């Protein structure tokens, strides 16, 4: 079991309210990702669930039990930190054994779980090393191992991959997703990386300034963002926003067009512009187009390669059924 409910939870640091009253339920077995820009309160929210921060008001309920006043050690949750937070004076084996030792598990059971975790995480050869002798990826595996052996009701991940290099990050991302598929335990994952959020989550919680902007599956957020903030935050490269006459033609204050929902031609199209930078990735090409008569730079994403260079004139045409409309408040209009 691992159903987590937040009821009217608030958090203030001094006079600053970082989380206004917030309600959220994370279902048992769900992979929920909290995503948002730096300082949006996503880590604070995770720490409130963990019990590492006290709520200013409201309740944290885990498996129908009010845990608001319960210390972190008694909540039955495991956490993986961005900095790994391994115990540097203990070997890998002792690090992984630590929570079990604290729980008073007998040594045979401890050894059994350590062996299983080490095998699952490719750590068998490193059990007698100290954390200082491991690479970043291995350290993060140890941190995950330490979380797994506790058999928690939910895992909390606080930006666990931020300190890893890009290639490792992708690998670990897959490993964590596979781990979730295998264990079916509730996981709450905090990240500022929307790619991680999109690829891993069953459900994404988009936060801004402590407020939940939208909760939904990755594709819901992608196809039907509730407001301009979510529309701009989910998707890479970012959605293009156009206000003024062009938006008015669609009966909206602002329209949003994703880079991948725009066609490019060198001969004809709706808007004419000049190529600023063309980024050729092989599989995709990102073209940043200036002087379209629309505000700012318009980014286009083309599958495959296209022979355009800096200074070329191009014509852009948005796919009519993929235009997102927003009102003056920035809210989505049908």
């Amino acid at each position, binding site marked *: 079991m691992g159903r987590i409910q937040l009821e009217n939870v608030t958090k203030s640091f001094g006079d600053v309210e970082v989380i206004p009253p917030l309600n959220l339920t994370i279902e048992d077995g769900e992979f929920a990702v909290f995503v948002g820009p730096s300082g949006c309160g996503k880590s604070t929210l995770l720490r409130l669930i963990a019990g590492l921060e006290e709520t200013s008001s409201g309740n944290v309920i885990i498996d129908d039990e009010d845990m608001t006043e319960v210390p972190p*050690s008694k909540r039955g949750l495991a956490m993986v930190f961005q900095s790994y937070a391994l115990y540097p004076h203990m070997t890998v084996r002792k690090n992984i054994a630590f929570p079990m030792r604290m729980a008073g598990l007998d040594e045979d059971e401890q050894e059994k779980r350590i062996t299983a975790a080490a095998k699952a995480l490719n750590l068998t050869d490193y059990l007698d090393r100290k954390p200082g002798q491991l690479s970043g990826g291995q350290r993060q595996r140890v941190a995950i191992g330490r979380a797994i052996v506790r058999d928690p009701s939910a895992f909390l991940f606080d930006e666990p991959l931020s300190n890893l290099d890009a290639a490792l990050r992708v690998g670990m991302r897959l490993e964590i997703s596979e781990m979730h598929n295998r264990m079916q335990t509730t996981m709450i994952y905090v990240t500022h990386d929307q790619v991680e959020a999109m690829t891993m989550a069953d459900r994404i919680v988009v936060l801004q300034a402590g407020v939940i902007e939208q909760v939904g599956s990755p594709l819901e957020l992608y196809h039907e963002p509730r407001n301009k903030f979510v529309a701009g935050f989910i998707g890479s490269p970012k959605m293009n926003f156009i206000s003024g006459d062009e938006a008015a033609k669609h009966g909206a204050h602002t329209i949003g067009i994703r880079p991948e929902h725009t066609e490019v031609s060198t001969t004809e199209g709706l808007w004419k512009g000049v190529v600023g930078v063309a980024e050729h990735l092989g599989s995709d090409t990102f073209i940043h187009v200036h002087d379209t008569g629309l505000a700012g730079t318009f980014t286009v994403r083309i599958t495959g390669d296209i022979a355009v260079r800096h200074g070329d004139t191009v014509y852009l045409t948005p796919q009519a059924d993929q235009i997102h409309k927003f009102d003056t408040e920035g809210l989505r209009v049908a």
Partner: protein
Amino acid sequence: MAIVAQSSKLSNVLWPVLAWIVGLLFFFPIFWMVLTSFKTDADAVKPEYLLWFTPTLDNYLNMTENYDYWRFARNSVITSVFATIFTLVVGIPAAYAMAFNPTKRTKDVLMWMLSTKMLPAAAVLYPMTFLTKSLGLFDTHFMIILVLSLINLPIVIWMLFTYFKEIPKDIIEAGKMDGVDTLGEIKEILIPLAWGGIASTALLCFIFCWNEAYWTVRLTTTDAATLSKLIEGNRAPEGLFFGRLSAVSTAAVGPIVVLGWFCQKQLVQGLTFGAVK
């Protein structure tokens, strides 16, 4: 290039010379004291025996035979060891609380603790003497241990606080998540991680306790009197006996110098901690 080379050549000579001068200046009184301890009281004041004299062990023999050096030494060990232990037992949890659960007032509390060191000891001499006597604690080990602990506690907490601040908060929080209570955090995580810092703090505290003279001289007569009291006792009554005084002083600083020598590494680390990061 040439200018750089020249100036570095100059500083290559200048700095070592300066270091030697300063080093000798610091070393000289100790050297003088040790030298004098091997002279008779009569020779000690005669300029012609400044460096060339007939060495004698009389002062040392006199000290152990007539002045009961070992009793004073034992008292010094007892009071310094227990005061250091007591200071750490109180100081570690205090520094832990302030380092990992700071409040708005933590800085004020730290400043307040330090401010107690600003109070001149002489200002509380009378009330302290009166209090210890009326409580029947005058000239007891307990009182000396208590006083030594209290006067060193602010420094110890400050030092430990600085060490503990260097430990990532995440590690302590990981401990909380792993099911450890506060005592467990201190025992399982904090002490092993800050061991170097705690050891050097303990060592410094021990040295401060050992060398403390103001209170140990005034709050003891015989039972709890430490080596400071022995030195003080050899100072005045029958005039100045430099040879004897030097022998007592040498015997008093000896153990601490030996201890300091063995723990040099920790000491330097402890004293310069936080200065260079």
